[in-house]
């Protein structure tokens, strides 16, 4: 590593302790041998410390602190829900980007990995042990909505029955990273501008029953799409969850999808841009959900 390379590409991250592995070793090694870069690193770190000490945050004014505590006290027992408001309008359609969610190649890779897993299991003779999924509030929410909506589902999004697809079920706003669709109006806009093939689960015997635009208990927007068959329902839930990460304990992975068994249900978790997630919940075994979701993606990709 030359001094130029170090200062151009490594110095800042080195000072911030952001280097790991080989980069870290190379940077440490370089400053160990180069007095000039060692000085540069020390100055970078001092400048960082200087900013921290000179910009120590000011105190929150006491009256504001009191107001915040009072407001917290008011909502602590009964977190308010934001009333949702929006009239659903028919939307102009656009080509379905969602139809390319899982390329055939990934499906093939998935099939190969399943065969490999089975082969390994047969070789060792030992059962595959999965970590338990920890309690996950977002999953709890998805399951509770599934249980409620599978019983009684009242669509509030216009059902589109043309061959071009249904204009609901999707809340993702892809246009701007700075845009947060946290108003139902925004959500409806995103909803309208998306497109999911209505017959996506047809092959598995599921028919689209309808879509809902709604709010979570904390007022964040969420959408629900119900597919129904003689044997049960599949619900696709989409919401924005900025600090939600995939919990451990997944049973399968397929492309961007992760599959879980959770609270007696099968779940398929998918992360999307801008902190959106979709969770598909079903009563069928998780292997069947894996088959249905991946097949649906293959179907969507080729249709």
């Amino acid at each position, binding site marked *: 590593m030359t001094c130029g390379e170090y200062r151009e590409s490594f110095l*800042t*991250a080195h000072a911030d302790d952001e280097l790991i592995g080989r980069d870290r070793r190379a940077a440490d090694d370089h400053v160990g041998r180069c007095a000039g870069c060692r000085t540069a690193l020390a100055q970078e770190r001092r400048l960082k410390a200087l900013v921290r000490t000179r910009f120590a945050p000011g105190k929150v004014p006491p009256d504001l602190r009191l107001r915040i505590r009072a407001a917290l006290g008011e909502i602590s027992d009964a977190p308010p829900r934001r009333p949702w408001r929006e009239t659903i309008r028919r939307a102009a359609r656009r080509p379905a980007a969602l139809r390319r969610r899982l390329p055939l190649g990934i499906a093939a890779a998935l099939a190969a990995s399943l065969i490999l897993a089975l082969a390994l299991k047969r070789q060792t003779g030992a059962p595959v042990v999965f970590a338990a999924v920890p309690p996950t509030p977002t999953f709890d929410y998805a399951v509770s909505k599934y249980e409620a909506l599978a019983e009684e589902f009242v669509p509030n999004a216009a059902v589109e029955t043309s061959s071009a697809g249904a204009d609901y079920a999707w809340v993702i706003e892809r246009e701007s990273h700075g845009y947060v669709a946290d108003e139902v109006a925004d959500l409806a806009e995103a909803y309208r501008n998306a497109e999911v093939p209505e017959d996506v689960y047809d092959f598995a015997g599921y028919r689209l029953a309808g879509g809902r635009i709604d709010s979570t208990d904390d007022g964040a927007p969420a959408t629900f799409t119900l597919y129904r068959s003689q044997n049960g329902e599949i619900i696709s839930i989409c919401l924005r969850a900025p600090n939600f990460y995939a919990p451990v304990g997944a049973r399968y992975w397929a492309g961007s999808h992760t599959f879980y068994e959770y609270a007696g249900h099968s779940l398929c978790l998918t992360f999307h841009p801008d902190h959106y997630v979709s969770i598909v919940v079903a009563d069928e075994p998780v292997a069947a959900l894996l088959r249905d979701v991946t097949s649906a993606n293959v179907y969507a990709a080729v249709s």
Partner: protein
Amino acid sequence: MRNPPAQNWRLEFEQLALPHLDALYSAAMRLTRDRDEADDLLQETVLRAYRCFYQFARGTNCRAWLLTILYNLFRTRYRRGRFEQLAATVEDFERELESNRLDQGAAPLSPEDLLADRAEAARLRRAVDALPVDFRETLLLVDLHELNYQEAARVLEVPLGTVKSRVSRARALLRVALAASAATKTGT
């Protein structure tokens, strides 16, 4: 959503989130540059955080989580576009240095020199304040609020590499500004 009992939730929230009020307030003041708006932004951030507290992954950086909410609210609720209006470009910044006839070729000022003099600290503040807003906010998230690059990227909704390059550029600009300021003061 299955929530823990309200009592426990409230207590846990107070223990984890409220110690960061001062940091949030300073960020709100920087973003809004208005006392009343900063008050509103802070209050709304705290209430939003409380309502969404179930989403906070225990064991992760609570300050980063709160700052994410604050920045999101600022972007969407408060003066959408203000962020951009404040965003002087690097070129503007460098032009300003130029127009002030500051000697950019002056020797870099060592941090120790600055610490020796309160007035110099004020110069540092001014230099940071004069940074292009994207750089300044990124630098302060990393240096002042002690977020790592990943956390800062999440708050700002930019790629990780952007955080790294902004921090690097911000420090470089800061050195130039400090050196120029010192040169002006000493008449060199």
